[in-house]
């Protein structure tokens, strides 16, 4: 197996694919659907926001290992964070997965000095940058989350 593949399918990713966290329906919350018409990945993100903070978040649906693990990791990493921090985190995440393959890892990790937002476990998805065609898989749950925050009930498409 190539180094790029090992980088993409890290143990953390495989684990979250096998046993996705927060993989359930959340009653009485906001929700949004995300769909990638190219490959058929389809997720619903459920959300409860309380006083500008993500009180609870979950997801359901089906997709490839990258999209499912990314959704699972996302739910873990945003719970308890403020909506504005989550927006920053999405920005950092997006930067990480779309960075040129040879960009030094420190640049992606450090961010702006004094930034409270760190990628943490989400760094497991850094390997996606070697596979530009899979960037949409990794970001599908995040786009869906943003739709749930901005205009709940929306259907999001990555195309």
């Amino acid at each position, binding site marked *: 197996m190539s180094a790029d593949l090992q980088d993409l399918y890290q143990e953390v990713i495989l684990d979250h694919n096998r046993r996705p966290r927060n993989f359930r329906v959340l009653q009485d919350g906001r929700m949004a659907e995300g769909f990638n018409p*190219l490959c058929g990945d389809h997720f619903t993100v459920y959300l409860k926001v309380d006083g500008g903070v993500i009180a609870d978040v979950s997801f359901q649906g089906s997709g490839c290992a990258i999209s499912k693990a990314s959704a699972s990791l996302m739910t873990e990493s945003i719970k308890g964070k403020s909506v504005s921090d989550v927006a920053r985190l999405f920005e950092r995440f997006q930067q990480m997965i779309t960075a040129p393959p040879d960009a030094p890892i420190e640049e992606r990790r450090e961010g702006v000095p004094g930034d409270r937002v760190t990628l943490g476990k989400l760094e497991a998805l850094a390997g996606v940058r070697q596979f530009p*065609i899979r960037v949409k898989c990794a970001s599908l749950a995040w786009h869906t989350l943003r739709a749930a925050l901005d205009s709940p009930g929306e259907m999001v498409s990555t195309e």
Partner: protein
Amino acid sequence: MRVREDFPILQRRVRGKPLVYLDNAATTQKPQSVIDRIVRYYREENANIHRGVHALSVEATDAYDAARERVQRFINAAEAREIVFVRGATEAINLVAATYGRAHLQRGDEVLISEMEHHSNIVPWQMVCEERGAGLRIVPITDTGELRLDEYERLLGERTRIVAITHVSNALGTVNPVTEIVQMAHQRGAVVLVDGAQAVAHMPVDVRAMGCDFYVFSGHKIFGPTGIGVLYGRAALLENMPPYQGGGDMIRSVTFEHTSYGDIPQKFEAGTPNIAGVVGLDEAIKYVTAIGLSSVAAYERELLAYSTDALSDIPGLRLTGTAARKAAILSFAIDDIHPHDIGTILDQDGVAIRAGHHCCQPLMARLGVPATARASLAFYNTREEVDALVASLRTAKAVFI
């Protein structure tokens, strides 16, 4: 077969590995002779057709007309004027839906398609049915991916005007009994369009033996260039259809008050056509005819049997589409590995397959799968390449254990 040397792209390497191209249902590779033909056209022959009195225009016109005759012989149409050059199978179906469909469908009429159709043989019919107030009826398939002929017979009704059916399923490989389908439709007075996109490069096609009214295919799926395709239509039908697009080349005379249209096939070929595409397609058909479609079919049948056995040996792998009559297309899923991940892992080994819904979302819904991985073979593929596919699939399994 010693044909691999004819295809320069098959010599290239991908990610340091020899390319194993198993995505022929998406598009086929081009032999050197086709590439050379297109280059020669632009280097030495380029001119517009049906206009100039100069030598180049005459040469280009001759080449264009000769290509039409070759296509006619290739599918055994009765006359060359029954061959209309279009952009591809999709445009051919849109043409028939927008002209024949619009002219013949009344409120309450029905168009019959099958559950295994490609989006290109669904959406144009949906559009014209909606416009005309006609109904779209769907012939179901069995779990193995075969057309339910009993259901087809039941659905064929007094109001069925058009049956549109694929010759070979791009997602399952199923070869439909088109001759029987046509006979049954004709008994009820319906016309039949057969989508031959996945058939023409893999088996001999004889539209008169089949009896179909329309037959469509794309050049790029038969070792020719993209952007060129063929609509075959029985002359009596084409003559009575309104034109599809207006413009130059399709007219007899134009005044600001009135235009009279040209004869078929020019009536359906408005504007300067894809001349380079037509001569490229001509060369591709010449190439594949020299090999012989019967030989191609026999070779691919053997390779399909070998591939089916090899894939079936992989624990947890399930084939989708196991019809008795199949083209060399293998759609499959592996337990706990999404087709998209299979595609990425195989690509690292230089193995090119398709992962997704194959433009057949209703079919995927029927089969209860979000997507499949698909290896689609051509006559230039080998057992060694199938072995490479299997080895790479075992790597995928190892990653996901």
